[in-house]
């Protein structure tokens, strides 16, 4: 067992088994409260859906979890540490925040090589993830020639470079064709079965209902639901019923 593994086992035990712990996170932009006292945790082996209207604070929460934005108060931790304090973060966390975070003139393979070099990963990982998302034949082409679905797959390939334990994905099914949606669902389920943790935001509730174990619903910056999917079904509610009841619907 190497140092990282022993650190992780220790950290997971100390955290009661949580991969992610978000504690009372508030983010203000001047007068606007983007997230208001948000608290949740994520356990290994689960897929969690992160739902809410546009502008509800989903992306802001994910950015704080990933160290791109600082909370005004509270803390968002992965394995008990802030993202910036993780050593080798790409081996812990893979994330896709936007579907188009690529230089249009750079090839898909070079996009991945740039990231693999910075992470100190072997170039064999680049080929492995290209094959995994079935982009091998387009890898030498500039990203500007890619469809939205291909960009989503390239983003996912980048997130998987470091063989992470936690996946954080913002609208990953957007632009995928039906076969791609099925593939992604099966992939995320298999990832969780193998002990991984997944946090996935989406507006496509029917898809979420088929993929996740648990949902977090955020509305106007406040977490309004944190439920295992089976609990909703036990109350005779569909995910859509619950979502529409809990959110204001005044989406921007």
């Amino acid at each position, binding site marked *: 067992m190497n140092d990282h593994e022993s650190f992780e086992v220790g950290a997971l035990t100390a955290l009661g088994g949580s991969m992610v712990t978000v504690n009372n996170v508030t983010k203000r932009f001047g007068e606007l409260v983007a997230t208001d006292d948000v608290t949740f945790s994520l356990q290994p082996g689960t897929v969690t859906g992160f739902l809410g209207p546009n502008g509800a604070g989903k992306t802001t929460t994910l*950015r704080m979890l*990933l*160290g*791109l*934005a*600082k909370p005004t108060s509270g803390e968002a931790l992965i394995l008990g540490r802030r*993202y*910036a304090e*993780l050593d080798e*973060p*790409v081996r812990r*966390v893979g*994330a896709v*925040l*936007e579907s*188009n*975070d*690529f*230089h*249009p*003139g*750079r*090839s898909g393979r*070079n*996009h991945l*090589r*740039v*990231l693999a*070099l*910075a*992470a*100190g990963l072997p170039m064999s990982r680049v080929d492995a993830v290209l094959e995994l998302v079935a982009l091998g034949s387009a890898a030498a082409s500039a990203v500007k020639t890619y469809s939205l679905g291909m960009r989503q797959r390239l983003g996912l390939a*980048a997130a998987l470079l470091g063989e992470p334990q936690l996946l954080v994905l913002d609208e990953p099914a957007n632009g995928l064709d039906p076969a791609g949606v099925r593939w992604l669902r099966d992939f995320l389920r298999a990832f969780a079965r193998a002990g991984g943790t997944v946090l996935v935001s989406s507006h496509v509730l029917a898809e979420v209902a088929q993929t996740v174990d648990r949902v977090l619903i955020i509305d106007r910056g406040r977490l309004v639901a944190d439920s295992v999917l089976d609990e909703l079904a036990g109350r005779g509610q569909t995910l859509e019923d619950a979502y529409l009841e809990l959110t204001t619907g005044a989406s921007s």
Partner: protein
Amino acid sequence: MRAQLSSELLKLRSTRTAAGLLGALLGLVVTAVVLHGYGVPSANLETPSGQLTFLVGWGEVLGSLFAGLLGAMSITEEIRHGTIRPTLLVTPRRGRVVASKGLAALLAGLVFGLVATSAAVVAGRITLAARGLDVTLDGGDYGLLIVGGAGAAAMWAVIGLGVGATIRSQVPTIVGILAWVLFVEGMLVDNLPGLGRFAPGALGQSLSGLRPDTLLAPSIGAALLALYALAALAAGSVMTIRRDVV
């Protein structure tokens, strides 16, 4: 840090931005030297300092300007296209990202400066010969032009990075650098030479031995320009660390 540097160097090599800027620089240097070689009165092209300032010095001026643009674009393109997000997810220590970008910009700027001043030397000699004027520059003059021009461009690339990391938005950054180099500095040096010679473009020119009557000695210019580069890098680093990435 070595991992981040090799990543930054691959970023520069894997799009057409740097190569396109270098090609445009080369074409512009040759054009500027040839046109000035034909247009400048021959009395201004007889002394070594005249040939440096009015002819081959364009290699330093344009090399530093384009190196500054490349340094700036090495960060503003990442912000514009969103690749800053994956970059910071892989390397969340932002100071390290900016430092490795600074090192990559320094190396790329060296290349820009070497190419621009070398091209100016070749174009200058051909133009003077075609016009029937004697070359009065010696090896020491050329050496200072090329070495000084490479050093100036390297530091200008770091300054551009610092400016880009501070302003973040690509178009205002590029317009700002162009306006400063092409207009503000010229007016400063012409009207307030006592102050203008401490401006970063004038310091870059002093490294190559241009306008020795007005500008500072090369060694002092190099030291001061290095201070500018360090200050710009520090400012860009602090601004990158402090602000949220949206």
